[in-house]
């Protein structure tokens, strides 16, 4: 296994950001999913990626985490070029994927254990961290239950635990708070805030604007495969709520209510 030394950084010579993306592009057949994205996320940043359904958020996250080969473009994580050395990049990141494809015939504890062991962590460390994570995320009682018997929210939490286990420098979370109960959501928020305060970077996608507004230092708004706005949250909001800014930027392509006038005419 190579250790994947940090690369020289981007051609323009800036210091390696947590995540740097240049000209990232992906088409599925004739459908352009992501049409050329440039993005820099500094270390310690809490970054929110928002956009309507089908905007290309998940495709983008897949490409920057080494799960989906882009058609063109450059992705650097902590200075490591993801598509030149995917293994070195994967060692630096934790991912909560959208589809939660887990080994669900393992118990929660086993899932974490094998995740850690297959990442080359020492068994003692894995065991200590796994039990701590299970405690914090409220899964201690379900540690011996097979993941296949977990609820959706519990699956999310165990997948999050698996993503955190190796203390990655950059954490990518696709819809982390969906299906999570309010108590756990608060715990996870606190955990992530503490994590970024320690210098780690969190990139997450969400549809919940209030949450993004409250948590994120920076936001990016995606629409039709392009990053149509990106920067510090305050700047993107420009005095409005993030939701208003979002709706304004994404535009009126989303139908207004007046087109569905018949919804007020009751059938019985």
């Amino acid at each position, binding site marked *: 296994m190579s250790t994947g030394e940090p690369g020289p950084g981007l051609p323009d010579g800036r210091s390696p950001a947590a995540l740097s993306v240049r000209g990232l592009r992906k088409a599925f057949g004739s459908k352009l999913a992501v049409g050329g994205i440039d993005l820099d996320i500094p270390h310690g940043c809490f970054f929110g990626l928002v956009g309507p359904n089908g905007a290309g958020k*998940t495709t983008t996250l897949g490409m920057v985490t080494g*799960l989906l080969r882009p058609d063109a473009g450059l992705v650097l994580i902590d200075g490591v070029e993801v598509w030149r050395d995917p*293994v070195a990049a994967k060692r630096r990141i934790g991912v909560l994927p959208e589809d939660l*494809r887990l080994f669900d015939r393992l118990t929660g504890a086993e899932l974490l254990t094998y995740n850690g062991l*297959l990442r080359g962590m020492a068994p003692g460390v894995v065991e200590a961290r796994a039990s701590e994570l299970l405690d914090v995320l409220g899964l201690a009682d379900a540690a011996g239950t097979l993941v296949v018997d977990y609820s959706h929210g519990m699956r999310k939490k165990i997948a999050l635990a698996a993503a955190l286990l190796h203390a990655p420098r950059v954490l990518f979370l696709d819809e982390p708070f969906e299906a999570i109960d309010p108590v756990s959501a608060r715990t996870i928020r606190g955990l992530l805030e503490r994590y970024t305060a320690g210098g780690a970077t969190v990139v997450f996608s969400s549809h919940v604007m209030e949450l993004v507004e409250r948590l994120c230092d920076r936001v990016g708004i995606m629409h039709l495969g392009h990053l149509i706005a990106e920067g510090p949250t305050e700047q993107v909001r420009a005095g409005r709520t993030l939701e208003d800014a979002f709706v304004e930027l994404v535009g009126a392509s989303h139908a207004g209510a007046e087109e569905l006038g018949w919804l007020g005419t009751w059938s019985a």
Partner: protein
Amino acid sequence: MAGHLVGLRLALLRNGLRRSSWPQQVGLALGALAGLPLAFGGFLLLALVPRAEPRAGLLLVEVVFLLLFCGWGLFPLLSFAGDASLDPSRLALLPLRPGELVAGLSLAACVGVAPLCTLVALGGAVVGFGTLGPGLALVVAAVLAQFALCIVGSRALLTALSRQLRSRKARDLVIVVVSVSALAFNLALQVGARLAERLERSDLEALRPLVRVLGWLPTGLAARALVDAGQGRLLAATAELAGVALAVLALGWWWWRSLERVLTTAETIPPGRVMTYGDVAEWLAEGGPRQVGRVMALYGGAVPRFQSQLSSVRGGTPARAALEPPQLGVDVAERRAPVEEPQAVVGPLLELVSRQLAAERQQPEDRVAGRRQGRFASHGPDPRIPALHRGERHA
């Protein structure tokens, strides 16, 4: 690394067993028992026939090796959806190189009932052909080479097809595979019968061409190496073994390439896939969407985690749902829970629907479900079996 992958596979097998209720465990035990006669039958065949009828030895080994290889290619395809340890995309998030994975997964693939049965059967060849002396090492090597062919070939094929196997099309493919393998089995039986006939007439000459053709397949090379080594032609055996090794390497390379592809084409935008009542009826080969809908309306409450979606619709549009007949009062949303394996959802649903359809028609037993159970029961303790029946635990 490899050790952890073996551990992972063991844990998955163990949990698959642990999760089953006692009737399923009996079924699994029966399945394992069904493997035993096959294993020992193969052992006796390979151990006794060559001694009794030396001229038939090569052909026998060639045929047995080829059948073993084909069996290893086909059976995992049938159990893929239920056996997570066969699905490499679940390892995509881990920093593992395809090369490491090939090595580790090969080792993990040697764990289980099917590999054990295969090794027992192949052990017969060592008894049947081995003679004390330097040839014995080559005989053992030939048997192990055949085993490696089976393992690596099976996993390479599975990985290359893993993406398709996860889709709805997999069902169609599985049907084709089952028909083809049934056909092949028939063919093998006919060949076997004819072979026996010829043997009685001591007319092996006519089978020469077949022996020659089979002998150039990788499995045939392994068979020839085995026979040559047993008869002291060590140089020829070594050359043939080198040929088998090349074949294993080629399959390994294919596996490696497929893994690389599978690990870098995450299905972020799969087409929407929806399981409709019509599909359920089609699965059962019985009734129609309306009957299934009616059964669901009347007895739907017994299905624990029913979800109309076969696999969660990610980014796609459940277009088919719009074309389907009305859902007849089943509260889909209430029972909706994202489930990864289609079987996990479809299993209890199928069971319930088939039971009710059968009851409504006063049939003694649903033949489709019966056949399906039989097919998998004969395949050893397969994690798919608990998947198909998990409804019972919840109900």
